[in-house]
């Protein structure tokens, strides 16, 4: 029986776990938090699938491919869209409580960029209800959870480029441990947390899996592509769902005038808002005309959050908004079987790049991706592990990481890493955000290189061994620094504009030079980048 180690317990991890278990593997899920506390709980909109007669799978494929701006892989998009109806049926069969339409079918709504209403949803809680349904099924299957395990590194045999397991910090005890397995799946989520208070993401979205993967020799793809959501609350970046505009909400500038088509694709609306704000104005979302009854019924979360975080009531007042970092299109480069460039190391969900979103993700395709590719990845990892059992060989990773966790306590703390982290988030939002140029990007790269040198002068100030969240946050900061360099180098290399990557100094798309994926990896600690088909 193959032993499959899954790292990360959001939707992608739990679907993979159920699939690997179904395929006969022994499954262990290690995660830095409790499964139901992951980012998936925040997904609101829905999960795309063609179920009715008024829509075709080809339309879903075409919409997704068009939105990907040349970086989507047609075969994998086709695979995902064709599997979508089956994925919805699977979710329904395990108990996901979908909202229903008048005839009792699973209800669908139209999201941005879709030619038909095809996002199946469960009120504004699609991600929350999916995640909890999956968790219940994992308990039923008796899957082993190791919670509060913070991923440090993957264990890789350098001779054979074969993954053997991973090392973790047991947050509660403060001990470093290793878990060996025949196959490892990374499902650790995206890196939106890098943008700090300018991101709609959970504070946990620090890209730990991607950073560990690149340290282990895996390749990353298209890291410069980060989707910005047009409407997040101005002060807190808490998401105001697209359904507020879908239902007829207006965007107003500081003169209280409309300035853009509210239902254009996300990147276009976000840039229009960005331009208004850059020109010294504020931007507001106006839903007052929708009426109190409608708002209470359709947007209750939004009303509550605007009251808490902006101190305004959207029924009577304008909502101050700004665009915020929302989804990481870039991720670990994987093949059609979800395996990375390291043998036995798989990746799935937002931390992977399945080439289904390309340069711009459609709303409703991320939950779909994690179910379709989760089922696929779990079975593949199980099969790989059964065919190629992991060799029992010595490896120094555990000793190295134990030493690191011990040694980091002696870092000098002359520089406050929380302050640097806030600065990194600000310069990323301003220079590696919606609008980029060569000079701004290079300035950020300089700042990152400086922070890399300064890391030994930072470190955790809390010296406790047990449950040291200051230590965890410092290692997360290290991962952010590791990834930020890769993102900026990718963004500097791509001297064109495409999807979410907009260069004001090269505003046109250039397929001849850049119609390819930005592949990045490290060789002996040196970052390498190239464009590859």
């Amino acid at each position: 029986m193959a032993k499959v180690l899954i790292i990360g317990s959001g939707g992608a991890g739990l679907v993979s776990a159920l699939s690997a278990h179904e395929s006969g593997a022994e499954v262990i899920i290690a995660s830095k938090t409790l499964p139901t506390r992951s980012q998936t709980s925040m997904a609101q909109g829905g999960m795309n699938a063609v179920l009715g007669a008024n829509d075709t799978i080809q339309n879903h494929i075409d919409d997704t491919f068009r939105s990907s701006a040349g970086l989507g892989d047609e075969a994998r998009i086709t695979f995902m869209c064709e599997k979508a109806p089956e994925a919805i049926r699977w979710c329904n069969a395990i108990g996901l409580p979908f909202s229903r339409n008048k005839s009792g079918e699973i209800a669908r709504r139209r999201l941005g960029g879709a030619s038909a209403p095809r996002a199946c949803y469960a009120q504004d809680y699609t991600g929350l209800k999916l995640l909890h349904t999956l968790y219940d099924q994992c308990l039923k299957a008796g899957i082993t959870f190791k919670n509060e395990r913070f991923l440090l590194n993957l264990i890789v045999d350098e001779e054979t480029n074969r993954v053997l397991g991973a090392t973790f910090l047991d947050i509660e005890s403060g001990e470093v441990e290793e878990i060996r397995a025949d196959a490892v799946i990374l499902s650790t989520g995206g890196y939106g947390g890098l943008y700090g208070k300018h991101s709609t993401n959970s504070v946990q979205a620090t890209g730990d899996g991607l950073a560990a993967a690149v340290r282990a020799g895996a390749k990353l793809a298209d890291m410069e592509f980060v989707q910005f959501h047009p409407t997040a609350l101005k002060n807190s970046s808490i998401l105001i769902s697209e359904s507020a505009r879908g239902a007829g909400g207006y965007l107003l500038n500081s003169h209280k005038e409309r300035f853009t088509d509210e239902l254009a694709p996300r990147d276009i609306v976000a840039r229009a808002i960005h331009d208004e704000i850059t020109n010294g104005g504020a931007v507001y979302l106006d839903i007052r005309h929708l009426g109190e009854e409608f708002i209470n019924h359709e947007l209750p979360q939004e009303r509550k959050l605007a009251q808490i975080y902006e101190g305004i009531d959207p029924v009577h007042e304008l909502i101050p908004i700004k665009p915020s970092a929302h989804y990481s299109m870039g991720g670990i480069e994987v093949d059609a079987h979800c395996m990375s460039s390291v043998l036995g190391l798989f990746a799935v969900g937002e931390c992977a790049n399945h080439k289904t979103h390309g340069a711009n993700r459609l709303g409703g395709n991320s939950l779909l991706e994690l179910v379709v590719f989760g089922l696929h990845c779990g079975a593949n990892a199980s099969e790989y592990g059964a065919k190629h059992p992991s060799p029992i060989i010595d490896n120094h990773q555990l000793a190295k990481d134990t030493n690191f966790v011990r040694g980091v306590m002696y870092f000098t703390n002359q520089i406050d890493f929380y302050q640097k982290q806030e600065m990194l988030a600000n310069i990323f939002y301003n220079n590696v955000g919606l609008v980029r140029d060569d000079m701004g990007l290079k300035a950020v790269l300089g700042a990152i290189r400086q922070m890399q040198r300064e890391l030994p002068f930072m470190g955790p100030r809390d010296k406790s061994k047990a449950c040291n969240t200051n230590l965890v946050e410092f290692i997360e900061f290290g991962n952010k620094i590791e990834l930020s360099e890769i993102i900026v180098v990718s963004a500097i290399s791509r001297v064109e504009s495409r999807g979410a990557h907009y260069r004001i100094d090269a505003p046109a798309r250039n397929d001849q030079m850049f119609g390819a994926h930005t592949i990045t990896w490290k060789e002996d600690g040196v970052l390498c980048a190239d464009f590859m088909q």
Partner: protein
Amino acid sequence: MEINVLRSADSTAQCYNIELENVTLLTILNHIKTKIDPTLTYSHGCRSGVCGSCAVRVNGREVLMCEYKPLDGDTVEPIRNTRVIRDLVVDSSPIERFNATAKAWSEDSIEGNISDEEAHRIETQSDCILCTSCYSACPVYAVNPDFIGPFALTRVWRYVNDLRETNSDAKIAAVQTNGIWDCTLCGECVPVCPQNIAPKQDITMLRMKSSMLGYQDPNAGIAFGGGLDFGTPMF
């Protein structure tokens, strides 16, 4: 503003004086951790009330830190009925333990259509974010630490009451021992739920369903002191 936080190292409340007005408790704790005292330890995630990480007690009442705006002099403590790991971080293993004991999952279901009204039957119960506020507020744990408890029983009712479930009766068996009959129906779990779920009502519904299936309240006899045998012939 003065905020008192119970620290686990010496089991006393530490007072922090913060110059922030009209912000959430989570914002204040983040300010303390990153600017004043990095040893202060707590859990958080989404900042928007869906991940269930940040439940604590303020002046003895359960709240989510990301939704609560503190007042001068508030005292913040970890939630109850579970082991404190450090400061406001508690052992979350009761979530897995009680949901597994209660078999709170779908056993088998049918695919057919169900109406919007029928789907509404489990809408509120499936809004649960497993923040464990209800569990912290429950007084039964003082006498029975094995009580399956409010969040897990609500979850069982969510599956029993799901029209797609084909064998919902079988789910009732798992909640007879240390389950529905151990609840005192005091209702402490209801006002603390950030998602407006009423576990007490769900437990009442599970009791009715159990009675219909022939299960009996094992405490019914004891309630009368065991001395009155009204149903027993006198000869």
